[in-house]
């Protein structure tokens, strides 16, 4: 049984169609990459999956249950963790408290039960030195790491990552890839939207290509990247 | 016949409430600012008219014509120098600043005019009435209602037919992009509040000539204005008129049953709308 299954999911804002008849599924423990040009509807797809946006049509099943009409909070509690493309830290809380919110509420535990786990996640995501800083003082890159750390603290079965590698240096990118790989190897399914292709292809088993709110291809990275159609629409140039 | 009479009185009273509300609606529509001082500014305008009438012995209608540009100036200054500084993502500063301002104006008026109830004399017009097939309607309520309709027609013309109106709507949609069109949002907001204060002057004219008022009468007018706006639905001026009428009718019907229930009946109508149609009766299509 897939961990996540979308069937004929649609959404539009006025005349602008942002999701059209989207259908795909993700197996437990699988890592799926999502690529597509700016404005292709990638973040919208995540908002539909996690419930920040309600679908206009179609169904979303998560972990064996129909979650199409569930609130984001409920989906989080049943094991869906996400990061936001534009980081949304709790600015007046410290970095550690940000993680604690996710650990205590998202994983439905007492603060004391997740205190150590949250500290470990800070180490794993390289944020431990900033643990007691207010999240509002973080740089953009640190905020992105905080997004990842918070999503991990909810102890998800499915992790939705929205462009967390952009702007990283080569070394930082490698660390990030290693972290995500470790998470993935613990059996957590991952859907990762990313422009930094070499980071993406180092982790994911399949890639889904989105354009104008439609799935125009899904398959193993080599096949997808070799497709001339993908290369043309994605890069806008023949590389 | 008495039921139709009550209904008519209610509709006409609704004209007054729509006048209270139109300025509030305009300001909220353009800058998402809820001005808790709105009622007190109506009372301030009433005192201003009273002052002009008593000092120069003018007719109240003429006095209102003089007061209107003064109120525009007050509104412009208030918005440009004080309220614009409070606008932003956080709703707390505008609420608390206008709340504080409301107390300041009330107590300023108390110092200036004492706590006595006042009334602006409109002479023979006050008691004049016309008869429609057996139903009497006071001339003042009729004039009030006509003024409300006129104000709303004029505002709609301004908003939908002029360059300034386009700037209003553009700024309301998106402040940053509006500024890329050369629109100065702070000036637009100040002009909008100035206009709202001119409407407030019209409302004050009828408030002052039809009933007694005193420096603490503002908050109740704010509540009526607010109820009319919410009943009608945010962002629609005709909705605001409808909201005023519903409020007026509810109050007169309530009063007809038991004089003590007048205001309560209005509040209950408001709560019912909130219960059944939380976005009001005529909400704007988007947002």
């Amino acid at each position: 049984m897939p961990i996540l299954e979308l069937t004929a999911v649609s959404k539009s804002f006025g005349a602008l169609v942002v999701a059209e008849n989207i259908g795909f599924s993700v197996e437990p423990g699988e890592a799926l990459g999502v690529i597509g040009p700016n404005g292709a509807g990638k973040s919208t797809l995540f908002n539909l999956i996690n419930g920040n946006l309600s679908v206009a049509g179609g169904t979303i099943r998560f972990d064996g249950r129909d979650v199409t009409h569930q609130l984001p909070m409920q989906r989080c509690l049943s094991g869906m963790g996400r990061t936001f493309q534009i980081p949304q830290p709790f600015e007046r809380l410290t970095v550690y408290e940000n993680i604690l919110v996710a650990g205590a509420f998202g994983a439905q535990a007492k603060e004391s039960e997740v205190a150590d786990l949250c500290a470990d996640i800070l180490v794993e995501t390289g944020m431990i030195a900033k643990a007691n800083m207010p999240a509002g003082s973080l740089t953009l890159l640190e905020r992105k790491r905080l997004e990842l750390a918070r999503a991990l603290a909810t102890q998800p079965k499915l992790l939705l990552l929205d462009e967390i590698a952009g702007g990283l240096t080569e070394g930082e990118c490698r660390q990030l890839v290693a972290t995500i790989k470790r998470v993935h190897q613990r059996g957590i399914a991952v859907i990762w939207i990313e422009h930094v292709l070499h980071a993406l292809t180092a982790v994911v088993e399949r890639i889904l290509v989105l354009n104008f709110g439609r799935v125009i291809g899904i398959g193993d990275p080599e096949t997808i990247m070799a497709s001339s159609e993908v290369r043309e629409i994605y890069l806008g140039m023949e590389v | 016949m008495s039921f139709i009479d009550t209904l008519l009185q209610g509709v006409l009273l609704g004209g007054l409430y729509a006048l209270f509300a139109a300025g509030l609606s305009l300001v909220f529509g353009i800058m998402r600012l809820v001005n808790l001082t709105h009622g007190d500014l109506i009372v301030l305008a009433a005192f201003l008219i009273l002052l002009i009438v008593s000092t120069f012995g003018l007719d109240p209608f003429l006095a209102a014509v003089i007061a209107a540009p003064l109120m525009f100036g007050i509104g412009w200054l208030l918005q440009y120098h004080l309220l614009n500084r409070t606008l932003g993502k956080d709703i707390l500063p505008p609420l608390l600043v206008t709340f504080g301002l409301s107390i300041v104006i009330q107590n300023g008026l108390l110092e200036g005019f004492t706590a006595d109830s006042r009334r602006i004399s409109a002479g023979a017009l006050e008691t004049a009435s016309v008869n429609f097939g057996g139903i009497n309607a006071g001339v003042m309520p009729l004039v009030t209602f006509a003024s409300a309709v006129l104000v709303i027609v004029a505002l709609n013309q301004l908003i939908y037919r002029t360059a300034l109106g386009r700037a209003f709507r553009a700024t309301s949609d998106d402040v940053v992009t509006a500024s890329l069109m050369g629109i100065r949002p702070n000036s637009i907001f100040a002009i909008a509040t100035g206009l709202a204060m001119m409407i407030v002057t019209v409302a004050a004219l009828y408030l002052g000539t039809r009933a007694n008022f005193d420096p603490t009468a503002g908050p109740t007018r704010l509540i009526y204005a607010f109820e009319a706006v919410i009943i009608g639905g945010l962002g629609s001026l005709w909705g605001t008129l409808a909201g005023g009428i519903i409020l007026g009718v509810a109050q007169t019907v309530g009063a007809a049953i038991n004089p003590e229930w007048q205001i309560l009946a209005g509040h209950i109508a408001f709560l019912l709308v909130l219960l059944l149609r939380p976005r009001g009766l005529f909400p704007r299509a988007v947002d």
Partner: protein
Amino acid sequence: MTTGFDTMTTEIEAPADWRVETRTKLSGIFAVVSLVAVVALAAAPFLVSRGVVQDLFFILTMLALAQNWNLLAGYAGLISVGQQLFVGCGAYALFGLVILAGLDPILAIPLAGLFAMIVAAPTAFFAFRLYGPYFAIGTWVIAEVGRLLFAQWKMLGGGTGTSLPREATKEMLGLSLLQDWFGMRSSAAADALAYWLALALAALTIGFVYKLLRSKQGLGLAAVRDNETAARALGVDARRLKTAIYLLTAFLTGIVGALIYLQKARISPDAAFSLTDWTAYVVFIVVIGGIGTIEGPILGVIVFFLLQNAFSSYGSWYLLALGALAIVTMLFAPRGLWGLISDRTGWELFPVRRLLKGGPHRQDDKGGPHG
């Protein structure tokens, strides 16, 4: 893990001895100081005149109201200007229970709080349909409805109000004990009793708010305040939290209302549901002192009292100045007096920040044995 990236992996060292701390040295000292202060305040009826005790009663009840409004507006983002509804409901419930049901006033106080909370439930249903600024005026309208409805209650004097029967307050629970033990006259004993209740209420409210903010729910509340979308996506039930805070502050505000009117012994709808007395002043206290902190309302109520003592004879000039002061504070020091102080000094008397200490990475950190 067999790809080339592994060589770059950050090693996760076994994290030994993580500690989470919120207390600071200063807050420890302050806890002792405040305990001493509470004891000293408790002794006030034996040390100072009745007039001073009555002043202190006023300060403490305003402080309790301010802490409640601060919790509501400063932490839960629910900017209500209708808290007079709960003061009025609590007060009227007390009068109703004492006059109509013959209950002892002391027993009636908690029931009055309960009544205010019961009223708050349908109120929340309506008011929560309004967003942001409209919520504010919505709560005000509902408070008006409350005032008008209680004005219809003829058995409690309708629009003109009524008084508590003298016998009821004279035979209040515990009063005879005070008279016996301390040889107080009955009016002084009644004042002292009300004062002690106010002191306990203010102290408990502060203690409770502090405990709440340090709890998991408090953490969730802070998260919702900072970013509601993110909080919901991380599993925080924002709506339930806000509703709970709304009901809870209604309960406490109702109790304060009952206590205030037990002391006043005379009630009318216009006084008990007064926007100025029970919301405007409270808002000014919180804003001037510093919204969103526990220290702010404490500081604010002291400033408020001093100003009132010095200038209240100027009547409306005083109120005008108070409003202007609140405006100036909001514009130029939006975090209030306490914000100015803590910015300069870094003081936190009620620290809620969870600091992560210990662990292998933090060995070299300063902080000594106490971290």
